[in-house]
């Protein structure tokens, strides 16, 4: 859906808080850019924040024309790859670093290491820079960080379970827990049981322990009454309509949950026998199209990720800013910031790309097929190593 820049500015003027300050660009930007985002796929507050930021950038750069296109999250990577590979595509897009490594290896995003001045990175967290880099090269302009945590309804859960044993006992005692049947959302439990995915060479080591225990834990939760559903919408709507007392999800949906659950709380994923849960710590950032106006796109991305604009995203959309100078006031965001800091940085290696299929299948085989977790993880490791040539 194309949105005129003027319409975006008018909409943003309705939601820009009194404290927002337009970006004071040192050199006003001029030119035309096409920008993709996926923010309507979430709670809606991210879109409000983006519009406010775009209005700020427009005010400081009247010569800059930005065409904004929203793409559904499920289609955006596919669409980017096909269009950029064909020599087309937008100038930049804001997405999580899910495919940063593969896009780099396929030559579908620009290496911006030499285009971003050192002072622009000086205030950013090392985690955000590392998560935006592949083999030491900066491949996206960092915007925010994220990791999943446990949302809960404080009216129904007085004290959120802090350990896996407490969570299982709570479910057995009647806590209505909704989990997504997906390896991304539940990966953190592997760390809680001492699991390690791969060694320095990318060879799978998950069969050495931890992962099987995590899958067994999920099976135990299911047997105790937790609902583990492959539908994201079912899980999300379940918390909003009271079907569930607690779920595990990320900060991108916080706006919707906060609007639907008056007394919303967020806690870290429960720790396990081996230590805290280690959910994936990801970085959202602006990818730059190597076919487009790279220099202008990088400058526009830096303008949109200035401290003032990251504050807008933090206040409006519960983003965890990459900029370390921004104070996080909201308790929900603060809890996600802790989850990010303690999380497992999402790898960008080629070997990691072979993780998703086998381990997602292992999860399904245990929960749906009743397979023994140790066998499922052993099978997944063999498949991952075979795909990586080990």
């Amino acid at each position, binding site marked *: 859906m194309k949105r005129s820049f003027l319409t975006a500015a008018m909409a943003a003027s309705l939601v820009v808080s009194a404290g927002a300050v337009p970006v004071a660009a040192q050199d006003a930007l001029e030119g035309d850019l096409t920008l993709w985002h996926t923010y309507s796929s979430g709670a809606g507050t991210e879109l409000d924040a983006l519009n406010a930021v775009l209005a700020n950038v427009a005010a400081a750069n009247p010569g800059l024309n930005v065409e904004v296109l929203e793409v559904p999250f499920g289609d955006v990577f596919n669409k980017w790859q096909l269009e950029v590979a064909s020599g087309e595509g937008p100038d930049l897009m804001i997405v999580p670093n899910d495919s940063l490594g593969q896009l780099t*290896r396929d*030559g579908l995003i620009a290496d911006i290491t030499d285009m971003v001045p050192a002072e622009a990175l000086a205030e950013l967290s090392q985690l955000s820079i590392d998560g935006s880099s592949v083999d030491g090269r900066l491949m996206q302009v960092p915007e925010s960080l994220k990791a999943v945590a446990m949302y809960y309804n404080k009216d129904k859960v007085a004290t959120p379970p802090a350990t896996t044993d407490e969570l299982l006992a709570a479910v057995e005692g009647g806590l209505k827990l909704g989990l997504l049947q997906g390896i991304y959302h539940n990966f953190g439990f592997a760390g809680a049981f001492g699991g390690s995915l791969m060694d320095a060479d990318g060879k799978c080591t998950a069969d050495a322990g931890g992962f099987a225990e995590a899958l067994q834990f999920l099976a135990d939760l299911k047997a105790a009454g937790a609902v583990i559903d492959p539908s994201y919408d079912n899980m999300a709507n379940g918390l909003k309509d009271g079907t569930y007392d607690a779920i595990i999800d990320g900060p991108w949906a916080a706006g919707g949950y906060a609007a639907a659950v008056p007394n919303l709380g967020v806690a870290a994923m429960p720790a396990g026998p081996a230590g805290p849960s280690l959910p994936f710590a990801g970085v959202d950032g602006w990818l730059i199209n190597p076919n487009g106006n790279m220099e202008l796109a990088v400058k526009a991305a830096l303008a949109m990720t200035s401290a003032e604009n990251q504050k807008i995203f933090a206040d409006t959309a519960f983003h965890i800013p990459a900029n370390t100078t921004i104070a996080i006031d909201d308790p929900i965001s603060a809890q996600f910031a802790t989850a990010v800091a303690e999380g497992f940085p999402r790898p960008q290696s080629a070997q990691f790309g072979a993780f998703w299929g086998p381990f997602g299948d292992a999860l399904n085989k245990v929960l*749906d097929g009743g397979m023994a977790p140790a066998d499922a993880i052993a099978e997944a490791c063999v498949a991952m190593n075979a795909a990586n040539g080990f």
Partner: protein
Amino acid sequence: MSAPALPAPRPAPPAPRRPRLGRDWKTALLFLAPAFIVMGVITFFPLAFQTYISFTEFTIKYIRPGADPAPWVGLQNYEKILSNNLGIPNFFFVRQVIYNVWWAVSNVAIHVVLGVAIALLLNVKGLRFKRFWRALYILPVVIPPIIVATVWRNMFDTQHGAVNQILAGVGSLFRIPAEAFRIDWMRQSSEVFPFLPDDVSYFIPLAFFALLAANTWLGWPLNAVVATGALQSIPGELYEAAEMDGAGPWQRFRNVTLVYLRPAMIPYAIYGFVVTFNLFHLAYFMSAGGPFGRTEQLVTQAFRLVNEQRLYGVAAAFSVFMFFILLAITLVTNRAAKATASFEG
């Protein structure tokens, strides 16, 4: 007396002349050229290019204008497919082929039998609102396939689906608790018929029956339409003559009705087989190929290889396999159709 003169032999008919190109052959070619050019661009070139890339390791980075040509790997893609070595969970090529054939055969058999049965009912003399019934039964065909798949998937939903709710309602009459009918139609992997060997049970998971129900709803109406047309072409005198000869209802059906139905139904069954073999929307949008790839069809697998895995070279090799499988099926069914056409002698 002399013998009568034999009549002069008839002159032999002139030998058929070879057709010669007329003076207008160039004009004819000129009129055919646009079609050939369009076919060349949208059919022949893609076929040739696809065959070429099936022998290469073609991935997305080779799409870029000016990119190096994809490396030649010979038969490696074909070997990977046959040895199930694509790095994709639950990929078993031979099982997929067997399941695909079984899926098409089972569906067509049910569609034809049901279509003929309902056509016979609609052909009963004195049945009221015939035109209404016939119009109503066309509705499944005009609904967009994605809508059909989505609605049926929702109907088979574990928690809120109409199917489970209806079963729970019936079960309540027998005091069976509703929880017993929380059937996970699409993901249940335990065997429906435990007494069958595993090699047979593999091809009939619970999801297969859900897909079968949806496709039966979709497939029998047109079979009924074709059968109705064939039934109406049967001369009534044949039935009268058969009755006068003492033929009972079953004998009249077998020796008159079936004989006239066959030339219409068999070609349509062949067409239905090919359509069902390549049916995309139910397997993709209802079961997503699950549980664990057991309802994955060749056409949905090919789509995933392109859209999800970006293994264009492998997907091309996969499509070449599909082409030859369908070619073999077409040749066999054509032979069967010709054998039936000669029945009337």
